[in-house]
């Protein structure tokens, strides 16, 4: 029985730093012996006890009985509550000491997986506070906190909240809503409000097909054809790519994504929906290098220089700083926020230099230093990494001469900067000379930014870099 009853500290200070405050409860089969485990103490005071997911198909659970009652002192390893899932009755035991301060979902009641069912206080002093909290959450205990991963479901007000939703669509007043047994089951499963639907079945009843349509599920009619559906799945491009399996190579290990890696993965897949194109441009860097040598002692980094240069160029080409949000319009951003891609602890994050065109080089450098420190300490606030309007990615320091970046969702363009290398150039008169040049390659959303726009932008950028005095002003 490897599933977990999770309780978490009901504070809003959640950040990227995943589940450090999560508390795990361990259910055990009613008949099996209950091995005890050591726990680590958590500084949190009142914890919510959540309906555990006891099986992969469990969507809600029924409280068969509370073994403990309010005010009982719990010690780790004790069974606290018996939960009935779609598969079995399970004793659920706690890993933590504390006092069962309040029971939010009583015996015989049903709560969706993840909903709070009780509150656990650490000391007696907190019981009153917990009880007050229970009262406020009690009424809403039936509503489901939708799991973050699921795609936007229709608002889920089951059972108790049902009358709140206007049944205005139903024409003839208090007409009885009739849904078939399977339709009701599906509605519960997909959190579709039956009252908001108009049935298409016999006598106007709501059928399973109606629910599937409302939940956006492709109808899978009865008697599914195993082989045919299989073929269809593999033949279709299958953007979800869930069905594809790869041959397993013996001895390989599987490491699940961290939260950050999952976010990257999700963003990368999302980026596939944007039509992008790329434009490259060689930029002479002799002057920039000279400037860099001068300002380096003052704490200015190459990143700050490039960000400043890009910001100044963007100020002249606002379309490159714009975003296409709905596929129908340009969204011109009022500030120029340069996101800079940083590899960190096996992840990738893009701290943002806000208003990079307005801040001077030295302030920008200082700001950048702070951001990098914050990123290392995992203390970046959402605003620090998701407010970018244009992204800069620099692999030049690794000797990469040119590369191609993926446009992050929500932005118009990203600039990939290669290494600056001495290059033999012939001028108009046929004289050869050696100059340092770097290749920049911009990926842009072609729905809003066209080739000429990018070319003009790159020309401006190139001029700024080749005459970098303006950067210090």
């Amino acid at each position: 029985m490897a599933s977990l009853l999770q309780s978490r500290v009901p504070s809003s200070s959640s950040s990227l730093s995943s589940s450090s405050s999560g508390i795990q409860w361990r259910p055990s089969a009613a008949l099996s012996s209950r091995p005890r485990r050591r726990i680590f103490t958590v500084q949190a005071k009142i914890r919510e006890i959540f309906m555990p997911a006891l099986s992969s198909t469990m969507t809600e659970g029924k409280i068969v009985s509370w073994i403990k009652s309010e005010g009982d002192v719990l010690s780790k390893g004790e069974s606290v509550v018996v939960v009935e899932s779609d598969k079995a009755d399970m004793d659920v035991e706690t890993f933590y000491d504390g006092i069962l301060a309040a029971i939010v979902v009583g015996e015989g009641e049903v709560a969706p997986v993840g909903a709070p069912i009780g509150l656990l206080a650490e000391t007696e002093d907190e019981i009153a506070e917990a009880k007050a909290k229970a009262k406020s959450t009690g009424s809403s205990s039936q509503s489901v906190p939708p799991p973050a991963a699921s795609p936007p479901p229709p608002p889920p007000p089951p059972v108790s909240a049902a009358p709140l939703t206007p049944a205005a669509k139903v024409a003839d007043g208090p007409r009885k809503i009739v849904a078939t047994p399977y339709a009701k089951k599906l509605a519960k499963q997909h959190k579709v409000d039956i009252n908001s639907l108009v049935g298409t079945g016999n006598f106007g009843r709501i059928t399973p097909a109606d629910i599937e349509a409302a939940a956006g599920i492709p109808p899978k009619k009865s008697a599914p054809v195993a082989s045919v559906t299989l073929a269809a799945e593999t033949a279709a491009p299958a953007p979800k790519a869930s069905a594809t399996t790869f041959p397993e190579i013996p001895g390989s290990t599987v490491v699940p994504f961290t939260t950050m890696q999952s976010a990257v993965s999700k963003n990368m897949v999302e980026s596939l929906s944007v039509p992008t194109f790329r434009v490259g441009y060689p930029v002479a860097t002799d002057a920039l290098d000279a400037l860099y040598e001068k300002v380096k002692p003052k704490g200015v980094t190459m990143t700050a220089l490039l960000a400043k240069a890009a910001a100044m160029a963007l100020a002249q080409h606002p379309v490159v700083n714009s975003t296409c949000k709905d596929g129908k319009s340009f969204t011109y951003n009022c500030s120029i926020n340069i996101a800079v891609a940083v590899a960190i602890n096996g992840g990738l994050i893009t701290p943002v230099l806000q208003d990079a065109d307005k801040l001077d080089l030295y302030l920008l450098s200082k700001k950048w230093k702070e951001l990098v420190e914050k990123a290392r300490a995992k203390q970046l606030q959402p605003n620090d990494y998701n407010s970018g309007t244009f992204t800069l990615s620099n692999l030049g320091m690794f000797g990469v001469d040119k590369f191609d970046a993926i446009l992050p969702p929500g932005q118009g363009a990203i600039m990939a900067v290669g290494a600056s290398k001495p290059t033999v150039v012939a001028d108009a008169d046929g004289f050869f000379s050696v100059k340092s040049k770097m290749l920049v390659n911009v990926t842009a959303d072609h729905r809003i930014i066209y080739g000429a726009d990018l070319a003009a932008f790159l020309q401006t950028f190139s001029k700024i870099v080749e005459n970098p005095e303006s950067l210090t002003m």
Partner: protein
Amino acid sequence: MQSMLSLSLSSPSSIPRSDPTIVADNVFFAGSSSSIVPRSLRLCGLRREVFGLQSSNASRIVAPSKPRRVNKVSASLSSNGSPSKFDYDLVIIGAGVGGHGAALHAVEKGLKTAVIEGDVVGGTCVNRGCVPSKALLAVSGRMRELQNEHHLKAFGLQVAAAGYDRQAVADHANNLASKIRSNLTNSMKALGVDILTGIGTILGPQKVKYGTDNVITAKDIIIATGSVPSVPKGIEVDGKTVITSDHALKLEFVPDWIAIVGSGYIGLEFSDVYTALGSEVTFVEALDQLMPGFDPEIGKLAQRVLINPRKIDFHTGVFASKITPAKDGKPVTIELVDAKTKGLKDTLEVDAALIATGRAPHTKGLGLENINVETQRGFVPVDERMRVIDAKGKLVPHLYCIGDANGKMMLAHAASAQGISVVEQVCGKDHVLNHLSIPAACFTHPEISMVGLTEPQAREKAEKEGFEVSVAKTSFKANTKALAENEGEGLAKLIYRPDNGEILGVHIFGLHAADLIHEASNAIAMGNRIQDIKFAVHAHPTLSEVLDELFKSAKVKVNISSAVGEAVAV
């Protein structure tokens, strides 16, 4: 002529374990051997099986016994000195499974026997009950397997769309019923049982009328008239959209949505059939929980497997007070009233309603008033030996009642067992049937079976009589054969006395549970104790090992005579 024919048919190979010459002796000279009819033919179910599978062989086996019976009867009549007092030794009113079982046993005991049947031979079980429903359930079981993509995938199988032809399914059920009916008829005819057609009425002691004006006398009479579906008041059965099991078995249509009133085993089996054929089902149950009558633990597990994941919902604690068939473009409406407050609770609108609230005895017109017997809610009152009790509480001599008509245990095989018990008594051997040893089964997928007491019943009895009760359980998940079939869902439960090892009840939910129960029911019937049967050997790997494990996991305190006696927990 017939005996000559049967002699020529009864080649030596037909009775393999007997010397052919001795057999011939028996046939013609009515020797005292009683081993001509193979023992396996004694059980009703098995006999049908034999007939169905190898009818030509079977008729050869049975045929030789006919002359023997005639000879023997005449011998016995002359010996007891009252040869022509009665037309028959035994007359059975009703040729259902109970009457049939009694008739065959009576012939074996040398009684001159007749059955009176006013409808069709086979009764409810064969024509409108267990038999055709098993045909439908066989279809539903296969449909379930073919539709269970996940299950098939686990086997590595790929199957194209499973569909069905309703009429062909219905025909299968109907054909099975006719086949079993003709087997039953032939088996009685072959043994020389007279089948008298017409409605039987008791005119007085030992006197029966059948048809319009045929009167016969018999030394003993057995009432075996069975039952009909009971339809509560307020429910209008039209046979089309509001139906009973009688109509449902004809499978004239498969509704999109059917309400089943009653969640006993009839309702459960039909829910299995209808959901497999694509219907959605709503149960209406008057009691507070589904599947009353089953052991609560088994019921709970069964609900998880048979109800919750299927296209079924339910209303419990409500009566269907009024059901109106579909007409004028309106659906079937069912008014539900709260079982406690009697207030109107809800109204269902469905495509069809199946009334499966139980069965009522079929005892009207039997002439019971002629012998001063009053029925109780239609049932004929009997004592533990199935002897009929009259209105004054006295036994009516020479009159017995078996099967659904007495209401003791409304199961086909119970009726047959009661019939055999009565014949034993008629022949001078006292016999009391132990009803706690009669198994029952519900043929859902997977099946449910039980024998003896449920856990609450056992605990109540233990409280009263002051003994201890223990419970042992084993899971199908630990059984190799079940896992090979990918059918690990299941539980077997043993309720027993730890002080003496007596088996009080066994309940099984799982693959082939209906076939597995007999090891337990036989043990109860024979009075075997757990400490004895736990040494019985089971073939590996078979599902029967579920019971093997079950008996071995029981902890009996006495008579641990052997080193292996200590229970092995699994």
